[in-house]
C-alpha cells in the first residue's frame, strides 16, 4: 500500500498548530534539546527555555527549538543537537553564554560549533531502529511522531494485512524477546493468536525494567512512547486482543507521565481506542504502575501485580500465552520488543533480519554505564564485539584505568573478562559465556572493582528482592550472601567456597522462577573467570582490588 491510503488520521495531525516548533523539513535548522531524565537532571529544561529566548531574540524565524528525548551520550549532558548541520553540543548549561552563542551561531548558519557527530565513533557504530526517533521527536507531541512516519505501520497493518500476515512478517524478521530470554517473538505471537478465549485476550507491555544498570526501556518510553504504543497495537491486531496494559516501574515517573499523555493523544488522533485508524479494530491501553518489586519483571509475577496482588510468580506451565491475565490468553513482550515492531511491519521482516548475526537478528539497545568514558544509551547491530562497544563506542575506560570486566544481564547475568572482549554480542555467545543478554544493561568495571564484592552486591540485591514464595530463593539468597560476606571479610575457608558452589547449584535447579534460578549466575561467572580473586580472599585474606574491608579473624 502507499502512504496516501493511510493519511486520514495523519492529515488531521498536520492540521494541528505546531507553533512555535516548526516541523522537521520546514525549518532551516533545528535545535533538539534533550529532555530525557539524564539531561533533565542537569536542568536541560532551563536550557530549552534559555535557548528559545535567544533564538527569538536573534530573530531566527525559520529555526525550530524543540524538546526531544534521549540523545544517547548521557555522560556529556545537557545535550543539544543541530541535526541539519550534524552537530552535537555537550555540557550546555542555560547560564553558559559562550555555549549559547556557539549554538545560535550554528543555527544561524555561521561557523558550526560543537562536535561533528559523523566523526564520533560513539555515533558512527550505531544502527538505530528502536531509537530511530529518540532525540528527533518531542515525546509529548504525537504530531512529531506522525510527521516522522509514525503510525504508518499500524495503519498499514490494520488496513491491508491480515493478522496472520503480520505474524508472518514478525516471525520472518527473526526478532527475539528483548527482555532477556530471547524467545522468538513471532512464535509467541502465533501461540497467543491460536489460543481461543470467549472472554478476550490481553497484550501486556513489560516496562518493569528492574535490572540495576539498565535504563533502555526508560529512555525509549521517555523519548518516544508512541512507538511502543504502535507496536502494542500492531501486536493486539495480530493476536486478536483489544485490551492492553503497560506495566511501568514507579521509579520512572517521567516515563509514566509521557506514556499517559501519549495514550490520550493517540486516542484523540483515532490511532488507539474503539476504532483504530478508522477500522473496526478496537484497542485500549491502560498504564499500571509498579510499586517497587524487582520480581514483577517476571511475567507471572507481573500479571499478579496487574491484578492487584502480591507480585509472586507461579509455576509455568500454563504459560501466559494460554492462561495469563484473569486466566485469559495474554501476550507479554517488553518495551524494546514492541518498539521494533513498527519498523518490521513497515520495512519488512527480511530487511530486519538482514541486520545482526546468524541467530540474533536486528539491533539491541544497551545502557552503557560504569567505568567507561561515554556512558549513555546506544543501539548497535547484534554481533558487534564487546571490544567495539566498550572501547570504540564507549571511548575506553575513564581515568586511564585498566579494564577488568563487563557485566551484562543484571542480577541474573554474569561478569565477562578481558579474554572475551572479542566475543560477538548475541544471545548464544553470551549464554555460552555464562552470562546472558538480559534487558541490555552493560556495566564496565575497572581494576578497582573486586569481583567477589560484585557477586555479593548482586546477591544482596536478589536477597532483598526475593518474593519469599519458594524456599531455595528465599533462604538460599540469604545464605549465599552470608557466605560471600564471610569471604569478603577474609573469614572464608575453602569449605565455604565449596558450600557456596553447592548451594548456588541447588538454587539454580530448584527455584521457582527466573529470579532464584538466575541469582547464582553472578557467583558462577565470577568463580569461572575470577577464581583467583576468591582464592586470594580465602587463602591469603587479601582483596586484590583493595575494595573489601578485611577484618580477618581466625575463623
Amino acid at each position, binding site marked *: 500500500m502507499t502512504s496516501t491510503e493511510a493519511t486520514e488520521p495523519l492529515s488531521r495531525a498536520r492540521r494541528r498548530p505546531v507553533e512555535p516548533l516548526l516541523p522537521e523539513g520546514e525549518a532551516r535548522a533545528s535545535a533538539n534539546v534533550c529532555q530525557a531524565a539524564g539531561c533533565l537532571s542537569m536542568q536541560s529544561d532551563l536550557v530549552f527555555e534559555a535557548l528559545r529566548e535567544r533564538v527569538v531574540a536573534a530573530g531566527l524565524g525559520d529555526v525550530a527549538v524543540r524538546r526531544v528525548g534521549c540523545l544517547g551520550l548521557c555522560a556529556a549532558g545537557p545535550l543539544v543537537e543541530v541535526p541539519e548541520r550534524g552537530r552535537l553540543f555537550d555540557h550546555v548549561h542555560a547560564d553558559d553564554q559562550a555555549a549559547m552563542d556557539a549554538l545560535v551561531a550554528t543555527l544561524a548558519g555561521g561557523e558550526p560549533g560543537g562536535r561533528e557527530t559523523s566523526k564520533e565513533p560513539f555515533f558512527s557504530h550505531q544502527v538505530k531502529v528502536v531509537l530511530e526517533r529518540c532525540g528527533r521527536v518531542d515525546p509529548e507531541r504525537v504530531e512529531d511522531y506522525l510527521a516522522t512516519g509514525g503510525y504508518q505501520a499500524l495503519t498499514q497493518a490494520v488496513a491491508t494485512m491480515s493478522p496472520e500476515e503480520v505474524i508472518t512478517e514478525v516471525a520472518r524478521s527473526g526478532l527475539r524477546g528483548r527482555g532477556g530470554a530471547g524467545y522468538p517473538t513471532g512464535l509467541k505471537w502465533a501461540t497467543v493468536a491460536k489460543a481461543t478465549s470467549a472472554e478476550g485476550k490481553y497484550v501486556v507491555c513489560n516496562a518493569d525494567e528492574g535490572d540495576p544498570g539498565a535504563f533502555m526501556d526508560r529512555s525509549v518510553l521517555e523519548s518516544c512512547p508512541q512507538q511502543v504504543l504502535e507496536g502494542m497495537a500492531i501486536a493486539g491486531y495480530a493476536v486478536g486482543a483489544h485490551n492492553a496494559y503497560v506495566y511501568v516501574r514507579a521509579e520512572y515517573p517521567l516515563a509514566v507521565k509521557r506514556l499517559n499523555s501519549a495514550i490520550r493523544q493517540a486516542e484523540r488522533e483515532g490511532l488507539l481506542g474503539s476504532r483504530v485508524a478508522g477500522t473496526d479494530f478496537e484497542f485500549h491501553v491502560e498504564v*499500571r504502575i509498579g510499586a517497587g518489586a524487582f520480581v514483577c519483571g517476571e511475567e507471572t509475577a507481573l500479571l499478579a501485580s496487574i491484578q492487584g496482588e502480591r507480585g509472586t510468580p507461579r509455576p509455568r506451565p500454563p504459560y501466559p500465552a494460554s492462561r495469563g491475565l484473569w486466566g485469559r490468553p495474554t501476550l507479554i513482550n517488553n518495551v524494546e520488543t514492541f518498539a521494533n515492531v513498527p519498523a518490521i511491519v513497515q520495512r519488512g521482516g527480511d530487511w530486519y533480519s538482514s541486520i545482526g548475526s546468524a541467530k540474533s537478528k536486528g539491533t539491541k539497545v544497551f*545502557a552503557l554505564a*560504569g567505568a567507561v568514558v561515554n556512558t549513555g544509551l546506544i543501539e548497535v547491530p547484534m554481533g558487534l564485539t564487546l571490544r567495539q562497544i566498550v572501547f570504540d563506542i564507549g571511548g575506553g575506560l575513564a581515568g586511564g584505568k585498566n579494564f577488568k570486566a563487563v557485566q551484562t544481564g543484571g542480577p541474573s547475568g554474569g561478569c565477562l573478562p578481558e579474554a572475551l572482549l572479542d566475543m560477538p554480542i548475541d544471545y548464544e555467545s553470551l549464554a555460552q559465556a555464562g552470562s546472558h543478554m538480559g534487558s541490555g544493561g552493560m556495566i564496565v568495571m575497572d581494576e578497582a572493582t573486586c569481583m567477589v564484592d560484585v557477586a555479593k*552486591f*548482586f546477591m544482596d540485591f536478589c536477597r532483598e528482592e526475593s518474593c519469599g514464595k519458594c524456599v531455595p530463593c528465599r533462604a538460599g539468597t540469604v545464605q549465599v550472601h552470608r557466605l560471600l560476606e564471610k569471604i569478603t571479610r577474609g573469614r572464608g575457608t575453602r569449605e565455604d567456597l565449596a558450600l557456596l558452589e553447592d548451594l548456588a547449584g541447588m538454587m539454580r535447579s530448584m527455584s521457582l522462577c527466573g529470579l532464584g534460578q538466575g541469582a547464582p549466575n553472578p557467583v558462577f561467572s565470577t568463580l569461572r573467570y575470577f577464581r583467583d580473586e576468591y582464592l586470594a580472599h580465602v587463602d591469603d585474606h587479601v582483596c586484590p582490588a583493595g575494595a573489601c574491608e578485611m577484618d580477618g579473624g581466625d575463623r
Partner: protein
Amino acid sequence: MPTATARSLAPPSDDKRWRQVEVRMRRLGHRPDGLIEVLHTVQELFGYLDEDALGYVSRSLGVPPSKVFGVATFYSHFMLKPQGLHTCVVCTGTACYINGARSLLAKLDEELGLKAGGTTPDGQLSLLQARCLGACSMAPAIVVDGQVHGRVTPGTVLALLEHL
C-alpha cells in the same frame, strides 16, 4: 475482568482528600484488582498508608484486610509510616554501587546519623535507597525531593541537602 463487589462507603474522616480516593476507586469500578492503583493514590495524597486508609480501601474494594496488608507490605514503594518532610533517595544500583554510593550512605550516616529507611528526629528528612533509578550514566545519583542529581560525592552530598 472480575466485577466489583463493593461500593462507595463512608470515608474514615471528613478530610477532603478522601474524595479524590473515592473518585479513583469509582474510575476503577471498585474492582478488587485496582488495589495497587488505589494504594498509589492514597499514598500520593497522604504521604503514607495508615491503618484507617488500609481498612477503608479494604472495605471499599471488597478485598480482605490481610490481603491489603500483604500487598501494601510486599511493594517497597508503599510506606506504612509517615515520612520526613523531605526525602533523599540514594541509588544503590550497580553503576552507582561501583561508583561510590556506599560512601554517600556512610557520609549521611556519619554526619546526620541517618540510615537508609530512617528519618531525622525532627522529621525533616527521610533517607531511602533505591535499586537503580536508571540514571546510571550519572552514577552515583541521588534524588532529593524528586530532583535527580548526578555524580554526587561525599563532599557534595551534604550541600545538596543543606537548603532543605
